[in-house]
């Protein structure tokens, strides 16, 4: 159930080029937030809230990792510890939970990486591998957190999950696109699901790659958003269901969709 919460900011720090990590105290939302859901953040006197996926839930605390892209997120970056933030949440449909027998591959790009961290930690899968793509070394975020998460969920019988970091310019990790290491992993291992979040062209390539190996794939879509609760119909994604194409609401039916249903344009 959506609610308005005034969350206390416990931390708000720069973690990479124009990317911030904000820790919020909000027990009411932390209890309810599911993996892949988002919160809708009021940014000063901006007429529209900013939708930000939940990166991590721990006890009474939420972590949001966001990129400064415009005036709203610039305002957010200036907040300091002790201030309160007006947020609506937890909103939307997230990623489905898996069971311990499943092996999960998460593929993230840029500021789409953060929501996948909680998928790795709280998604239920018995084994998780991660492929994380960034433009350049300066943009790399959450590498250590994913390393710990992917190691942490491995059962005793399994080797720890792997984390592959890619940069488009080759300045760090593996050079090139996420789909190359993704495909290597798909060839090697039997996955129960691919969960992905990132820029649209990447999501499309990830969806195609997952389909090639017949692994079910879920993608978290981003769209310019209005109300965040399903009323205004501005954040639409074209989805094909039962043979017909329609615009569904990213905030309500999404942000996570079955990749096979998304009409990539």
């Amino acid at each position, binding site marked *: 159930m959506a609610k*308005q919460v005034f969350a206390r900011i416990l931390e708000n720090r720069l973690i990479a080029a124009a990317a911030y990590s904000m820790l919020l105290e909000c027990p009411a939302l932390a209890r309810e937030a599911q993996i892949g859901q988002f919160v809708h953040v009021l940014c000063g006197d901006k*007429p529209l809230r900013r939708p930000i996926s939940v990166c991590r839930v721990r006890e009474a605390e939420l972590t949001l990792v966001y990129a400064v892209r415009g005036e709203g997120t610039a305002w957010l970056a200036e907040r300091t510890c002790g201030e309160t933030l007006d947020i609506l949440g937890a909103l939307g449909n997230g990623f489905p939970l898996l069971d311990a027998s499943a092996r999960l591959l998460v593929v993230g790009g840029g500021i789409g990486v953060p929501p996948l961290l909680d998928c790795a930690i709280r998604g239920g899968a018995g084994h998780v591998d991660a492929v994380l793509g960034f433009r350049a070394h300066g943009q790399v975020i959450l590498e250590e957190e994913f390393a710990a998460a992917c190691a942490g969920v491995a059962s005793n019988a399994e080797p720890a999950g792997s984390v592959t970091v890619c940069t488009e310019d080759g300045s760090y990790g593996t050079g090139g696109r996420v789909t190359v290491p993704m495909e290597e992993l798909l060839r090697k291992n039997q996955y129960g699901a691919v969960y992905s979040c990132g820029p649209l062209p990447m999501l499309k390539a990830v969806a195609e790659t997952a389909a090639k190996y017949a692994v079910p794939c879920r993608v978290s879509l981003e769209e310019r958003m209005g*109300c965040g609760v399903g*009323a*205004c*119909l501005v*954040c639409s994604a074209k989805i094909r269901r039962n043979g017909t194409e329609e615009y569904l609401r990213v905030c309500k039916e999404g942000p996570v969709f079955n990749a096979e249903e998304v009409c990539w344009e």
Partner: protein
Amino acid sequence: MSLLNVNICGVDFKNPVIAASGTYGFGKDYTDFFPLERLGGISCKGTTLLPRLGNPPPRVAETASGILNSVGLQNPGVRHFISEDLPWLLEQNTVVIANAAGSTVEDYSENVALLAQSGVHMIELNISCPNVKEGGVAFGTSCASVEKIVGAAKKVSGNKPLIVKLSPNVTSIAEIARAAESAGADALSLINTITGMKIDVDTRRPILRNNTGGLSGAALLPVAVRMVWEVRRAVALPIIGMGGVTKWQDAAELILAGADAIQIGTACFANPFAPPELIGGLEEWVQREGCANIAELSGRVRPW
């Protein structure tokens, strides 16, 4: 009679605060925050005779104190509205206003005729949507076409009061209001969004995939107040004022300018509790003014 009770065309509203069409869906989406019955009424998302897919995204862009939208009347069709959404709405103890849109006189008429036989309390004729290629605002910008479409709708609206929603994208809204009145409108609502455009200077692309969209939000308020004031002096019909209302003082301005009730929309996106806050503020205002009812303040601006 309470401080805020108003009557428009024989329909009782417990307060003059109505959710604006296109911003509140069919009423269910905000019920996590407060029950719909707190509102005086809801003007539902505009429906057309047949379902409409709407425009491709992006459909929204933020501007200074406002937003542009180009949803393009995405809706499941009037029959789906009547069978699937209306039964629940009619149990919510609030006034239900259907918003009817279309592309031709014929499909407006058929749409209104279906609504006239349904349980809705009022029908708001949307001749001011700026985001569809045919119909919409095209009907609302000349007196001749307003008379034609309102006359046709009035013939089939039966006993449902017909509210005509006016576009601000006109030279003289007072003349359009007179045309609507002479064609049989029972009430007027104004203003719909002002057509606007926002360009990303790096890509040189408009933010909206539709290039242009309708501007709503706080930026609109002074235009809405001026237009309500002009229309109040042009016609005798009840007026539902809207455009940029975010707090009770904005609603009070529209009422002083001549509105009998107001609608609120875009403000809910930032503050989902804006409607109940507004209702509380208006109640205190009426009390402070020493009035028995808010209707006593309608049109009571003291122009120089």
